[in-house]
């Protein structure tokens, strides 16, 4: 079981992810609605895994991933974004993301990604 921080500016998407992740047996320890809050909560809560949206107000998910990775080399970060173009995937991976899931996703896709990054 992993301790998970969910990051997405849409409350609806956080609700979806929380539901899927909880049903997979993981614990959702926090929710952030922008990249800056994610950076702060990642430091405070020390989650094992972070889901990260890209297009968000305040700080985008790529910058937040880079910032979190700078201080925490071990946390697993899964970027979940509607922006699936190769350049965006490359940016996210270079910033330190472990995996990339394109929205819309389903529970199975989230499970695969979590299993992969935690293995």
């Amino acid at each position: 079981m992993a301790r998970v921080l969910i990051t997405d500016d849409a409350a609806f998407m956080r609700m979806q992810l929380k539901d899927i992740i909880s049903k997979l047996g993981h614990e959702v320890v926090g929710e952030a609605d922008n990249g800056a809050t994610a950076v702060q909560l990642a430091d405070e809560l020390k989650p094992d895994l972070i889901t990260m949206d890209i297009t968000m107000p305040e700080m985008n998910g790529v910058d937040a991933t880079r910032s979190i990775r700078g201080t925490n080399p071990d946390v697993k970060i899964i970027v979940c974004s509607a922006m699936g173009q190769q350049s965006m995937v490359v940016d996210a991976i270079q910033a330190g993301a472990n995996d990339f899931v394109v929205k819309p996703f389903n529970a199975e896709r989230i499970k695969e990604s979590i299993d992969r990054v935690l293995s």
Partner: protein
Amino acid sequence: MTSTEERSKAITSLLNGTIMSVKNTIPVQHTIGKPQLSGESLKLQFGVLIGITGDIKGKLVLSGESNVFSSIGEAMFGMPIQDEMLVSLSGELGNIIAGGLSTNIVQSGLKTDITAPTIIEGNMTISGYERVIQLPVLFNAIGELDLFLIID
């Protein structure tokens, strides 16, 4: 974009990218109507607006009855969605369609980014753009969603 020809190619790519995005992301049988140039201003009651930046600048607006957004959300995510969550879902639906659009048009050589969604509720008029293309999409047993591609 410099020449008129390049610009109309870009608009065609935007339109095709939007249609492909709707087809790929919304699991409801639908019919896409004929794209038409719309008037000088848009009047909306409920919808979502996403900015497009980069090689082509504009906005994508999704407009429809709130129950249409709710039913599409239910088809996509398997649960009925109302009230505050409906506003959030509508924003996310816009984000997913615009994100798909941005992804699709890379193959036409257009690099774009999108902004976080803005929700429109109540009577609103949008004006001050170069042109707007209206794309009506009729979802079976749900209703119509109008997509507006605004070119700045």
